[in-house]
């Protein structure tokens, strides 16, 4: 992450809000902080952490394009997050504050560090941690639950747009110490859509992501994901079964397309 961007964020947040950079994606930079935007910090005795997701100005594009994109994307991400948080069963981080004009959102912090230096507890690191015993019950259970999350998301007519194993954060289940509850994050490309096409593409993107990062075990992993996905639809009765068939049929069609047609040149 370039120092300029860190400075830009620090200037926007002022020196009263200390930040620790975590990652830089293509579009946004992510920080953690211990300051809540509106609850006095004296209440924060547990030293709770929060996430700040900031979309820096992209100097390469025209300021007008940049402003409108930043505003649009921040707002749509916040909207989707707040809607999803209200739906029973769907696990997403809680939205705390949002400043669309400056491209900044505050979120609840999720996840933890995995043991033995495997890094942050997203699905990608978790699967790598389990690479020695790739098909154990914990992996199966987790992937099944991830599938369920995506199933619920689609059932409620939302699409994620960028499903990869690093966009799924695992949180320890407080009741059963060894189990993980998957949460979906990063809805920057999310949308509401009732089209089977969008859902099929969503599933295809996830399948490709799993194949490219966990290639040796991808078949089994994808099977479990689809199992969890299907069970959500099946539990919705006759209509659920009908919709499931439509989505899976389109998913198979999208897969056949590969990455689209050839171009001339």
């Amino acid at each position, binding site marked *: 992450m370039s120092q300029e961007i860190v400075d830009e964020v620090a200037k926007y947040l002022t020196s009263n809000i200390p930040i620790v950079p975590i990652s830089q994606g293509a579009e946004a930079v992510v920080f953690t902080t211990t300051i809540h935007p509106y609850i006095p910090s004296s209440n924060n005795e547990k030293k709770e952490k929060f996430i700040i997701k900031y979309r820096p100005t992209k100097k*390469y*594009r025209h300021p007008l394009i940049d402003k409108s994109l930043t505003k649009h994307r921040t707002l749509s991400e916040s909207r989707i997050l707040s809607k999803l948080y209200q739906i029973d069963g769907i696990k997403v981080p809680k939205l705390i504050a949002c400043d669309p004009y400056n491209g900044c959102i505050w979120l609840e912090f999720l996840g933890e560090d995995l043991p033995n230096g495997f890094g942050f507890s997203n699905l990608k690191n978790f699967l790598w941690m389990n690479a020695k015993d790739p098909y154990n019950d914990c992996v199966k259970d987790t992937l099944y639950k991830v599938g369920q999350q995506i199933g619920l998301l689609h059932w409620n007519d939302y699409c994620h747009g960028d499903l990869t194993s690093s966009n799924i954060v695992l949180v320890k289940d407080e009741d059963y110490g060894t189990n993980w509850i998957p949460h979906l994050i990063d809805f920057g490309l999310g949308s509401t859509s009732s089209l089977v096409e969008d859902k099929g593409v969503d599933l295809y993107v996830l399948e490709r992501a799993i194949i490219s990062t966990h290639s040796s075990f991808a078949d089994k992993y994808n099977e479990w994901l689809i199992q969890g996905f299907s069970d959500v639809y099946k539990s919705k009765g006759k209509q659920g079964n009908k919709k499931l068939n439509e989505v899976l049929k389109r998913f198979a069609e999208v897969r056949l397309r590969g990455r689209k047609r050839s171009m001339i040149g």
Partner: protein
Amino acid sequence: MVNLNTIKPKNNRNYYLALGLEGSANKLGVGILKHPILPSHESGDNSHHCQAEILSNIRDTYITPPGEGFLPRDTARHHRNWCVRLIKRALEEAGINDPRNDIDVICFTKGPGMGAPLHSVVIAARTCSLMWGVDLVGVNHCVGHIEMGREITQAINPVVLYVSGGNTQVIAYSENRYRIFGETLDIAIGNCLDRFARTLKIPNAPSPGYNIEQLANKCKNKDQLVELPYTVKGMDLSMSGILAYIDSLAKDLFKGNKKNKILFDQKTGEQKVTVEDLCYSLQENLFAMLVEITERAMAHVNASQVLIVGGVGCNVRLQEMMGQMCKDRANGQVHATDERFCIDNGVMIAQAGLLQYRMGDVVKDLKETVVTQKFRTDEVYVSWRE
């Protein structure tokens, strides 16, 4: 382990000579390229560092009148008319008197491209091959661009943005293939610019895109933009809607349709937007989309270098924007070439073809030289890299 030196050059020389023939669109290019034998090529991934010497690089462009595009039939006729002359000139410039003994391999564009022009050039390639008894190699046009860009800029493993009249792709190398991470869902960026140039009826020489760039530079009010659709879809993009919209604006402007409030002030009837403004807005919008998907690909594969190839890659504004994007990423570097290598040329076909030849991949039977309009970048097995 890659060994580029297994096939010995003709007559025990210490260098290879390749003739490259390109004619997949309206440019006919002939180039002759020399590769010395380097010890560093015996092992390891050094295909970006061939110390290639360009002995000749000649191009002739079929230019149509303003407002018209190039049709396959007429382009093919142009290539047929000029091919022999260009090859003769190229040989002369390179100082080759006896192609039978001097040239190791003839490389031609196998695809993708327009069928008829590809055909007329491959016929020339086959004829030369039979006449001189020289081996043939069929080259993927896109891989030609990538390999030439890597050789000129010495970029080791960049994310490649390939932007031209027929292609818009973001490519990264992995496991012996140039994999496509993002591409256009409908028309290519060059196509979009060319067709807008046709609507504006501006000249097609030296190239429509260049003339749009010059008009955009003349835009007086760079603080304002004409709002256009911004259509990035994940790592893909779509440009047909933008073209249709800006075309309709340009037509309204020429007709003087005062009812259009984007173009004319509704109270005074004064014109608010000029052709230069439209060109400027179009470029800003399209290039912002290109840079965004490139950045996405870079973040995805964790790369720090970008290489811009293809005809639109000469655009200074695009290079500038890419440079700015790279500056904001850790150790970001942008590599671009000038019009000699960006725009279709014969040398790039010779470069990729010679690498292929040195790995022992030659045409064994003329049946294999059939050209194809559809030939994806990721279909090629890149044996010369690790």
